[in-house]
């Protein structure tokens, strides 16, 4: 006696349709990579085989895990600090026009500047043994998208809501709390989602310029310099996982907030 409900089975089949094709494609790609490297006898320094990379991951899970924690930790500290500063400044810029005008060029500069380029300067400022330069780099990178999105959200008050607040004789602070802030929240979190990937990339790349040799970025460079090509790729794999975790976690946050926020 097995008669699954049609809705369950159709939902299952839709999951199959969305999950199976990319998985099959990925497996085929890796198989083709393996076949190409083995068949054409590609030198490992050009491109190691997936089997060799997997072997390295399998041999050093603890090392990759620790390095991921260092890089991920730097990215997280930077993301949180950068986002906090961005939200506060966006609030001030939304409330005070002059601040908005004054900060616009600086924010534009931060948004286009390759922030990792300042890493060497920060290493000389804070010393080569400190993680702080990487966290600052990640923070600056996270700042711009959160600031711009939050500011946009704060400005997105619908006229009908503004009039309603006037009709209720609400104080500016009451109107901010009842209408402006809840309306801006989904914007803030979509900014955090963009910022999360940037923070991870920045924290990782900042390691290429010096500092303690404990993170994924440092290990990638040192493995490559010591002809450990498969090992370097194994750390790259770790970096992908860290990036994915950040992306998915913040995406989940964004979804949760906009579901509560109902900004369909």
């Amino acid at each position: 006696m097995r008669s699954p409900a049609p809705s369950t089975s159709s939902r299952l089949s839709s999951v199959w349709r969305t999950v199976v094709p990319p998985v099959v494609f990925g497996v085929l790609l890796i198989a083709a990579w393996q076949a190409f490297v083995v068949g054409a006898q590609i030198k490992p320094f050009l491109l190691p085989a997936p089997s060799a990379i997997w072997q390295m991951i399998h041999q050093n899970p603890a090392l990759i895990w620790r390095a991921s924690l260092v890089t991920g930790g730097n990215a997280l500290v930077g993301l949180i600090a950068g986002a906090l500063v961005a939200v506060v400044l966006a609030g001030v810029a939304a409330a005070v026009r002059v601040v908005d005008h004054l900060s616009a060029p600086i924010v534009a500069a931060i948004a286009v500047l390759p922030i990792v380029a300042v890493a060497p300067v920060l290493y000389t400022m804070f010393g080569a043994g400190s993680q702080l330069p990487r966290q600052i780099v990640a923070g600056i990178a996270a700042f711009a998208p959160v600031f711009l999105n939050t500011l946009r959200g704060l400005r997105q008050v619908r006229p009908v809501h503004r009039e309603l607040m006037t009709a209720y004789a609400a104080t500016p602070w009451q109107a901010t709390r009842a209408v402006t802030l809840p309306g801006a929240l989904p914007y803030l979190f979509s900014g955090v989602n963009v910022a999360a990937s940037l923070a991870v990339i920045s924290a990782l790349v900042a390691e290429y310029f010096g500092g303690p040799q404990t993170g994924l970025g440092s290990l990638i460079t040192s493995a490559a310099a010591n002809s450990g090509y498969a090992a370097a790729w194994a750390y790259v794999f770790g970096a992908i996982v860290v990036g994915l975790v950040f992306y998915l976690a913040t995406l989940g946050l964004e979804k949760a907030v906009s579901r509560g926020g109902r900004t369909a």
Partner: protein
Amino acid sequence: MTDIDAVQVEQVSRVFAGGRRTVTALDDVSLSLAPGEFVSLIGPSGCGKSTLLRLIADLDAPSSGTVSVFGKTAQQARLDQDYGIAFQQAGLLPWRTVAANIALPLELHKVPASARKSRVAELLALVGLEDFASHYPDQLSGGMQQRVAIARALAEKPRLLLMDEPFGALDEMTRERMQTELVRLAAETGAAVVFVTHSIPEAVFLSDRVIVMSPRPGRITREIELGLGPAAERGERLRESTDFYAAVTAVREALHGEGAALPVGVETR
């Protein structure tokens, strides 16, 4: 009438200065509303009917003339929360439940939580949405959203209700049902109502008096007193009565400027 007028508009003009050309939205408009009276403002787009309502609500200020609400300035009346208001867009806060949306004005005016809760329950019953208290606005139909907006406007038992085409975005059937409900609500609460619309049957069905306006510049061209009986007795039968048709015809002719309006208590000023 011994009571003070609910609304007194005296020789009000509103001119919008817009760069090269200025627009006279309202030109020398006077109007008064008795307590509990239901008055509709009707006219084509640009006749200033919404502007007039916004002046009464103190969402805008007149260029000249005075607006008083219950004997106070419009601003004082707004600060004292003497009116409730509903717009064409329901304007609900999408992140609040139906109950929390209705509670919003009570919250802003620091009504204690227990009183708030019982008042919200009362209002939900009044507009027939008891089962939807914890729904979010996007889970409701347009008509239900508008009912929430009306409940919100009634939250503080205002003696004056200002409505700017609240049913404008609804389909005809929902619209007629909402009109029947509004007539009942207005009668139950005893509030005076200023109702902006561009639907003739809507104005006739709802109102004690219809104010006909014309555009460029916005002026009151005619006031038509309707004698369609007490609000409580208005229902579907009224819509099919000859009195109703006669009144619709009178308003239509007033709107289109044909001189020969039917004598349904026509009053010209």
